[in-house]
């Protein structure tokens, strides 16, 4: 049995967690997430402010993750830290702290790719969410459609060509005069909206697309955002807000569901795993379940704390990497962008 302390500081959440287990038998012992509220006034994350806040949160957050697990640093086998992708200044706080903690306590250090963490997050809650599966990772920074043949063997099938799904929610929320982050506000409002009032075209979804076409799995949301902008200009926002929110969300969800369905069918997967902050959207998860039921696939969506950025998923992915003998050197750096490890040809 192995115990891993995970540290995550890639964006605006300072998080630490402890998991223990072997292989896919893993238990989450603790998870602490400190969200930085300060960015709300800016309508988006300010990298320098995020980095400063990580430095004044990292010690209490990590200490609390250990104490909630009723463990000391000496009980831990390895420290897993997010090193990419993300805001470099923010990542460097976690990376530097993790390195010095590992060095001074004689523990192993494991470097974890943030998006690989998201692939593992759901399995902490749903033990059966193991490969092979189709994964849709949707957040403010990423939209990735991945075929997970096995842990560590990933086919990147599709991604966004412009805005990430969460970014599209935030931008449309701003157009509709809703607060940041926009996802929860749009979902709530869309429930009251009439789906027939504003029907936006589904971006990059056409019947004549075939496997191998460059746009078969990719998505694009900037055109949809522009369509919403035009609708906002034409309409009285006060009376149309909920209807526009509904139209936008329907288009985004239908696009993601269609692309995910294509991926699951093409690779004959019977499990679909969602991850990332947008996976908190219940309407999306519901639509995904309805569609996947038709092809006999189960959908696993993580609870909000595991969907958004968190260190439990980093510890969980770190356990996999640790068990495979991976150790990070003391000169480990942070990277704004880096391909998923273990990519195989799609």
């Amino acid at each position, binding site marked *: 049995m192995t115990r891993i302390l995970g540290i995550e500081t890639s964006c605006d959440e300072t998080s630490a967690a402890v998991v223990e287990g072997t292989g896919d038998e893993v238990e989450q012992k603790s998870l602490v997430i400190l969200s930085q509220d300060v960015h709300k006034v800016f309508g988006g994350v300010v990298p320098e*402010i995020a*980095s400063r806040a990580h*430095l004044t949160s990292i010690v209490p957050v990590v200490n609390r993750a250990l104490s909630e697990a009723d463990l000391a640093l000496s009980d831990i086998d390895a420290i897993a830290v997010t090193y990419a992708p993300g805001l470099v*200044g923010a990542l460097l706080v976690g990376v*530097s*702290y993790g*390195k*010095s903690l590992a*060095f*001074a306590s004689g523990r192993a250090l494991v470097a974890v790719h943030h998006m690989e963490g998201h692939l593992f997050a759901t399995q902490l809650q749903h033990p059966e969410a193991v490969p092979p599966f189709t994964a849709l990772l949707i957040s403010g920074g990423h939209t990735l459609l991945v075929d997970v043949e096995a842990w560590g063997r990933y086919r990147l099938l599709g991604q966004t060509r412009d805005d990430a799904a969460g970014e599209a929610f935030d931008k449309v929320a701003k157009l509709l005069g809703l607060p940041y982050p926009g996802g929860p506000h749009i979902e709530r409002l869309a429930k009251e909206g009439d789906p027939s009032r504003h029907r936006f075209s589904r971006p990059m979804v056409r019947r004549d697309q075939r496997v191998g076409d460059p746009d078969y799995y990719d998505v694009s949301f900037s055109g949809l955002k522009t369509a919403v902008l035009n609708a906002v200009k034409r309409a009285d926002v006060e009376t149309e807000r909920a209807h526009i929110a509904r139209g936008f969300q329907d288009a985004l969800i239908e696009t993601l569901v269609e692309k995910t369905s294509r991926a699951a069918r093409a690779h004959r997967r019977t499990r679909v795993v969602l991850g990332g902050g947008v996976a908190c959207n219940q309407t999306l998860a519901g639509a995904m379940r309805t569609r996947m039921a038709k092809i006999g696939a189960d959908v696993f969506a993580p609870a909000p704390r595991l969907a958004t950025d968190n260190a439990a998923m980093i510890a969980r992915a770190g356990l996999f990497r640790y068990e495979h003998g991976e150790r990070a050197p003391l000169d480990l750096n942070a990277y704004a962008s880096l391909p998923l490890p273990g990519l195989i040809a799609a």
Partner: protein
Amino acid sequence: MSETILALDASTYAASVAILDGNTIVRERTVAMRDARHERFMPAVADALGEGGLALVDRIVCGAGPGSFTSLRIAASIAKGLAVASGRPLFSISSLALLIAGVEGGPPEGRWIALLDAMRGESFSQAFDVTPGGEISVASEVRVVRDEEIAALARAIGARTAGKGRDLEAAPHARGVARLGAHRSLQAPVDLASWEPDYGRLAEAQVRWEAVHGRVLDGRSR
């Protein structure tokens, strides 16, 4: 018995680490902090500590800036991790003081203005007095000055300048802790949870926000 100190500073893109036995420098390293693939400060700290690691260290001292935001944060994160894992207390010291005190062989006698690049044509500055015996005392607060004002400022207070490309070529160095034992900030350890460097400037987005809103944002770090 004298105490063993691990001193770190990363207020510029060059970082330094020194192991001190009381006021004697046992080992020191200077490294370029980062390139595209490597973060070199942590390996340099490990190398300076040697096989004994932190076991022989009584306390840790970290340069507190002002200076490069990212470099300061890397050093502070490393210092906090070392302190937490080893249970040793962490102290902070001005990087401008380390610029004067870190001069190899000790700074020359007289009044000095220590200068560090603050970007946008400005420098962080602070005056220090150095006695013939090599004792260093603070002679002014930290100020941000326009580069074209430096010469006049130096004349006005009868000081020479120290820093990159100045009268005295100097950069902050961790070894300077050996000459600053009496400095006020080395008398009491910092709170590990809340301590942060003196960045010298607010984040740019915060400056703009406060200008627009006419009030201070959340009292966050300055």
